[in-house]
């Protein structure tokens, strides 16, 4: 009998975005799936993360940015697929 629920929904799941990069391969413009497009005003920290190399490797390049209008988001590039995602800052 299963009376304990285990239907999990991840919190802060990455949202796929499209980005335009500058010459240093840093995001210049961020386009969300919904269609709105925002320029990157400034950059914060950036870091790289390698994980689960023993299973299905996860390699990400993170960059923290402030978008026009003041929104702070964390963007990362999935270096295995080249796709970009946005997440809420921790």
């Amino acid at each position, binding site marked *: *009998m*299963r*009376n*304990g*629920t*285990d*239907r*999990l*929904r*991840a*919190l*802060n*799941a*990455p949202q796929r975005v499209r980005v335009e990069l500058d010459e240093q391969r840093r995001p210049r413009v961020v386009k969300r799936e919904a269609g709105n497009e925002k320029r990157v005003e400034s950059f914060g920290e950036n870091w790289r*993360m390698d*994980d*689960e190399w023993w*299973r299905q490797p*996860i390699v990400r390049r993170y960059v923290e940015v402030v978008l026009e209008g003041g929104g702070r988001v*964390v963007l990362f590039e999935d270096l295995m697929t080249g796709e970009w995602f946005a*997440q*809420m800052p*921790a």
Partner: protein
Amino acid sequence: MTLTPHLASDSAACCWIPLFALRTELARRPELASLPVALVAPDTTRTPRVWQVAPLARRAGVKPGMTVSQAIGLCPALKLCEPDPVHYDEQFSRLVAALVTVSPVVEPVELGRAYVGTDGLERLYGSPQQIVEEIQMRSAECGMRNFSERSFAPQTSHVHSALRIPHSALRIGWGRGKFVSWVAATRAKPGEAVIVPVGGEAKFLASQPLAVLPLDPDTHRRLLQLGVKTLGALVALPEEAVVSQFGRAGRRLWRLAVGRVAPEPIVAALTFFTPVGERDLLAHALDKLVDRALGDPRRSGWRVQVVRVRAELEHGASWLVTATLKDPSATRERIAAPLKTQLERSPPAGAVERLVVEFTAFAPGTAELQLFARDASAAARAGRRRALQSAAREIALRIKRPMLYHVIEVQPWSRLPERRYALIDFEA
């Protein structure tokens, strides 16, 4: 290790004022007492329904749950009152506060009904009869308006005097356990008490009608058709026969009629985003699952005797550990300790995809009795949970899909932010 001291009790006094909200309203507006009065339900969203009905209106055929238009159709003179839940809560809080002066173990159940744990009070007050008298005295002094049966009387002069005279509608039942005390309270006359002596529970319950059990109308009808009219007749049947006729609900009813009912197995499960092999992480997850299972309201009143952990491993393998607690417990540390020992001694052979903690056997309270929510915070948690469950049911009815979630830790240590926390359906 320090353990939180638990306030608990095996013997209970059930304090009950039927139609509490209506009586409170009439105590505030005595001019209504001679009229056929009904309160409108406070939580009806679309069609207003009748909630509590005074005897005069009941005599005209008005019943709780009817729509207001049906009720007025049956009783054109019906005086409908909008409810004032805050006022009713305030009045009930005064009663609860008075009960707390008698015993530290008080569990409010609903408006007008509260259980008082009476273990150990004999040294203060004496026999159960004297304890009950103390409760009656404190409740009469609490400042809450007294709700006489006569507050429903047709003669206004009597009503006024009844409201002033401490002739309470409070009914008290005393016995071992909440069910026995509740049944005793339902048998008591207004302002009086019924005491079920220790050892006399089975005899007392045997003569009670089936209606004291939490039965649905269909089960009630079927039992009557089988010639079962009292709890004694129900208990006389073999438990298996009742279960074969009425399923799991039958088992619960049978055990309740005997005097005790243990909860069904309580399960808490977690599916990891990615398989987990680290023992520290599994131990952490175990703690979280034991906490969740302990928080299940069905566990209230029971200590855990047998706990089982199942793990589904990568590549279809599994892992199972069962621990029987020599001293049944309701504390996470004690329940999780033998599981963690097993986890160290014989860990799973692979990474765990899904971890399940299951409480399969329970023991009623002795050393740390669980018949009551043991402290004020536990009672408050139970109240909040009830309110949440009610909200969740309403949301599910309106939106047809779950929209209320718990936030739980999944892998808070993970470097991937999306794996640290998750939403899990709040089950009503």
